[in-house]
């Protein structure tokens, strides 16, 4: 293997980590169809049936059979979680009961219709988010999806069918998903449609003919097939990369898409995502922030466009530059982009002809080695123009009034000066005022002041006075020149000022980040660190801040730090806890629980969250992209520091634990040795006496008593040692495959004479396959339960020991015919040193607590009850591992 062919260790590590998170996360299997009616739900149920037959613990979370008989029949008999019913404005809605599903924690859950939008006031707006939460909880999910609901394909489908798609799922929700294409030729689908076998909501029935044209269906089918094929290729590539056998990233392409507030940007982003997917290339979305003010609507649309790009997997970069072309090209060179994607304006208005073509031309001319794609991209038809002027005036009205006032004042001043100087000189006073104004107000007001002053000058001072007429050519020239000079000077000044402001803001942001980093680095302890975070974030974002940290002692996953400047309400606390557990931002301006008061951001380092930062903004909520960037940088910085702090703690903790474990083990070994050595001596003396063979019958039976006593004492020592190991958490597990009958025999042997006065009945199926358990722990469970039964029941009664495989559990039952358990709380019988009121000599009260501890250590449980026929019944359930297949043997 040459150096170049060797797999990159980082890539391998990433693949392993991906595998690991995949293993912890549940697996998502998507039954993908080209449109409704191809039989996705049916296919999903068939697959589920197969899993169910294999003994998989599965449950139906949500199923939409539309009353079809075949589908209903297939679902019958599978366990189902009842739906959650919600009444919303008098309408009965039913949804997946996410909490019930999480509490039930099956191995596999079926959730139909991945793209569904949840009822208002649900935990998540979308069902796919419910599914992600299930996956995060380690539950596998089967779901169904039509190709049209996939974010990156939605537009293509819209174009094919002319139907707007509202419910879409981001492609990132499907990372690591396995796809099964449910395919049906268009003709067959149409036949099914004609036979009324496809359910369609009534309002859609009219659109049915348009949608289900053979041409449409073929195109949709091709989309679905191509998507599945791409996914398979992706998997193969990853596999190859892991094995180092392929030629990965051969393309070496890096795509850059320019994003703006324009509604066409969204489709541009999707187009780029598709191209990136086909090229297996990384891609960036760049927004060039100009110094011009932006309406709130534009800001919202921009945020949406950037969020879309982020969701689709792009790296987001924002930069500030008044020259869009320069900004784009700078980032493209810095990031080594090989291709740039920009939009082609849909309509060529006169002004856009100049501006648009010049932007495009310059971009193409100056891009050098970089390819430029100019993509025709259609957006939703948003009426941009009518909205803007309204805002424009409303916002700036007071400034305009002020500007008019000042120009008016200057006019008054000029009226006085007019008596001493000529009217040309007065123009300079006006000009002075306009330039001065440009230092303080925006471009609109400057334009306004230039125009107004020109008119006033003309009206009041240019002869003929008090008219707008200009008689001499010289005056006309003066007026025109004044107007142009005032305009240009004013605009230039305003622009410089705007750039300065932007510069200052950038500097402020850099300073804020620097200050945070410095203060964090200088904090001597955690308390100081937390105080710094709360203070700096609050100052930089003008917000009340709450910092929540994981708290193991409390029931809630996180609790707010006492020095927080925002006291979280119970509701906000829940949102913060959710953000922590899901490692996703939640609250205002996000997709998760958007109705909350504040914004909750998890501090994520690596794959775990170390806390949650919650912000309640003083002003109306609106973060500019630059601010959002800064906040992200803050969060990353804080998370990193927290993680470092946590690692340091963990290291100290681990050292301490290791030391205490070493001491504990040493002590236990020494005690065990000290107690057992004399026991060994006694036991071997007793047997040695018998072996010498010079004893009479009475003496011989005395040595047997001695044997029995040693054996009992030895069991007690062992129980005490086990108990202290269990308590200290030093129990070493050693699971392996065992023949269950061996374990039972060994337990019986271990008890020796203790069981001699009882009749023990062993009931294990002859063909019981090997079980995977810890032999010692399981044997001790049986020894204690059987010993317990022997002590608490009268001699001569029967003790029954049985083993059964029930589902995926091994169930061991020890039943006796004695007086049974005294009344009282059954659970307390497993507490330490808990003995019956009429306790017989021979029990120490630790046996049952050990049994419980040993069962739980192996992931099992124990329960006790009285049998109907009299006597006590102890039931131990242990997880059963399926026997892996044995290699075939040739006879």
């Amino acid at each position: 293997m040459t150096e170049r062919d060797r797999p990159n260790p980082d890539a391998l590590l990433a693949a392993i980590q991906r595998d690991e998170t995949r293993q912890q996360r549940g697996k998502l299997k998507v039954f993908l169809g080209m449109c409704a009616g191809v039989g996705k739900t049916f296919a999903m149920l068939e697959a589920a049936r197969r899993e169910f037959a294999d003994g998989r613990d599965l449950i139906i979370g949500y199923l939409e059979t539309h009353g079809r008989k075949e589908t209903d029949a297939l679902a019958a008999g599978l366990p189902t979680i009842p739906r959650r019913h919600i009444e919303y404005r008098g309408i009965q809605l039913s949804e997946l009961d996410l909490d019930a599903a999480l509490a039930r924690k099956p191995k596999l859950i079926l959730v139909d219709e991945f793209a569904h939008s949840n009822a208002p006031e649900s935990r998540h707006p979308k069902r796919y988010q419910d599914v992600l939460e299930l996956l995060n909880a380690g539950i596998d999910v089967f779901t169904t999806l039509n190709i049209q609901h996939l974010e990156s394909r939605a537009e293509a489908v819209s174009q094919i069918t002319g139907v707007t798609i509202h419910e879409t799922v981001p492609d990132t929700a499907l990372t690591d998903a396995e796809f099964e294409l449910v395919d049906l030729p268009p003709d067959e689908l149409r036949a099914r449609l004609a036979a009324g076998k496809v359910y369609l909501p009534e309002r859609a029935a009219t659109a049915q003919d348009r949608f289900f044209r053979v041409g449409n269906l073929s195109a949709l089918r091709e989309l679905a097939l191509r998507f599945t094929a791409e996914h398979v290729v992706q998997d193969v590539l990853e596999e190859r990369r892991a094995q180092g056998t392929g030629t990965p990233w051969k393309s070496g392409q890096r795509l850059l898409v320019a994003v703006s507030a324009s509604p066409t940007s969204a489709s541009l982003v999707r187009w780029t995502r598709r191209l990136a997917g086909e090229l297996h290339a990384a891609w960036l979305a760049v927004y060039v922030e100009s110094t011009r003010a932006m309406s709130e609507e534009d800001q919202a649309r921009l945020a949406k466009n950037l969020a879309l790009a982020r969701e689709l997997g792009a790296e987001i970069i924002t930069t500030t530059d008044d020259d869009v072309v320069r900004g784009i090209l700078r980032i493209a060179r810095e990031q080594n982009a090989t291709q740039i994607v920009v939009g082609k304006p849909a309509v060529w208005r006169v002004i856009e002809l100049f501006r648009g073509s010049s932007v495009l031309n310059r971009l193409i001319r100056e891009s050098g080695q970089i390819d430029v794609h100019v993509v025709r991209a259609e957006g939703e038809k948003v009426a941009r123009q009518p909205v803007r002027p309204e805002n424009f005036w409303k916002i700036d009205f007071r400034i305009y009034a002020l500007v008019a006032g000042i120009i008016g004042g200057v006019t008054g001043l000029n009226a006085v000066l007019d008596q001493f100087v000529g009217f040309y000189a007065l123009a300079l006073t006006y000009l002075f005022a306009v330039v001065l104004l440009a230092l303080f107000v925006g471009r609109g007001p400057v334009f306004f002041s230039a125009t107004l002053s020109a008119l006033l000058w003309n009206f009041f001072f240019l002869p003929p006075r008090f008219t707008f007429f200009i008689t001499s050519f010289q005056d006309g020239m003066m007026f025109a020149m004044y107007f142009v000079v005032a305009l240009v000077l004013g605009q230039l000044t305003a622009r410089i000022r705007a750039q300065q402001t932007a510069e200052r803001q950038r500097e402020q942001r850099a300073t804020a980040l620097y200050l945070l980093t410095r203060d964090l680095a200088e904090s001597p302890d955690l308390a100081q660190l937390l105080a710094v975070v709360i203070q700096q974030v609050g100052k930089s974002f003008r917000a009340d801040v709450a910092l929540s940290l994981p708290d193991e002692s409390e029931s809630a996953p996180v609790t707010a730090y006492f020095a927080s400047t925002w006291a979280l309400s119970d509701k906000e606390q829940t949102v913060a806890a959710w953000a922590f557990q899901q490692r996703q931002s939640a609250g205002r301006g996000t997709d998760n629980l958007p109705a909350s008061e504040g914004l909750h951001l998890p501090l994520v380092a690596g794959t775990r969250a170390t806390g949650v930062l919650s912000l309640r903004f003083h002003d109306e909520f609106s973060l500019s992209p630059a601010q959002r960037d800064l906040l992200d940088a803050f969060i990353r910085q804080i998370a990193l520091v927290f993680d470092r702090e946590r690692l340091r703690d963990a290291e100290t903790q681990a050292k301490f634990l290791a030391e205490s474990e070493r001491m504990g083990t040493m002590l236990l070994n020494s005690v065990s040795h000290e107690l057992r050595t004399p026991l060994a001596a006694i036991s071997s003396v007793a047997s040695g006496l018998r072996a010498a063979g010079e004893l009479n019958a009475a003496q011989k039976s005395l040595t047997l008593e001695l044997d029995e006593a040693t054996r009992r004492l030895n069991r007690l020592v062992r129980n005490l040692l086990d108990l202290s190991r269990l308590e200290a958490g030093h129990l070493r597990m050693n699971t392996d495959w065992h023949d269950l009958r061996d374990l039972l025999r060994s337990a019986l042997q271990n008890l020796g004479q203790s069981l001699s006065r009882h009749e023990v009945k062993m009931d294990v199926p002859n063909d019981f396959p090997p079980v995977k358990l810890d032999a010692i722990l399981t044997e001790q469970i049986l020894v204690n339960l059987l010993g317990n039964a022997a002590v608490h029941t009268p001699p001569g009664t029967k003790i029954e020991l049985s083993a059964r495989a029930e589902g995926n559990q091994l169930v061991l039952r020890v039943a006796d015919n004695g007086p049974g358990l005294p009344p009282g709380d059954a659970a307390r019988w497993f507490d330490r040193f808990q003995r019956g009121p009429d306790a017989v000599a021979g029990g120490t009260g630790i046996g049952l607590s050990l049994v419980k501890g040993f069962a739980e250590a192996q992931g099992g449980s124990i329960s006790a009850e009285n049998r109907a026929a009299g006597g006590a019944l102890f039931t131990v359930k242990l997880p059963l591992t399926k026997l892996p297949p044995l290699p075939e043997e040739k006879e």
Partner: protein
Amino acid sequence: MNASDKPLVLIVDDEPQIRRLLTVTLEANSYRVLAAVSGQEGLVLAAQHRPALVILDLGLPDFSGQEVLRRLREWSQAAVIVLSVQDDDKGKVAALDAGADDYVTKPFNTDELLARLRVALRRSTKTDAVAVVHAKNLVVDLATRRVTVGGKEVKLSKIEYDLLRLLARHAGKVITHRQILQEIWGPGHEKDTHYLRVYIAHLREKLEANPETPELILTELGVGYRFVAND
């Protein structure tokens, strides 16, 4: 039997009481006995006196039992029986894999210890392999590969026969899971204990008079199997 015919046993244990006890018991049963209190002393005595058998405690203060075994095995083929505490399966298995012949769990029974001693000594002195192994009414003819129970031939698969042959050849001695798996299924299968459980169950079904209470192939829980042949 004169003194030099008696086999020499070296006891390595730091507990004086156990040393005294073992010395008395063994001397009463016609063995010559040497005792060492540490692994170091044990190794020196073993080198000087060349005992036929070593009884080695696994919980020595200076070396671990495995370490003593390793050093001893570098030059000596003496039989070794280790003394271990009950819940130390890993120690037992490691010792057996490192070359110990057998183990006895404390507190031990004198009869049991003496029986183990006899088997271990016989195995270490016997040079040529037996051709036919008898155990109760089972006869394994290693030369002809014929297996009969009460005179009736039993059909075994290849793996079943290999397994039985391995156990029978080491009759009386415990063989660890690891040793069996490596021998029958080859390297890389040391962890596939489930193979073993399934095949042992098959063998018991075919050979034992009552498979529920096996008398030929005994399970040493967590350690391995022991085949009991007639003396």
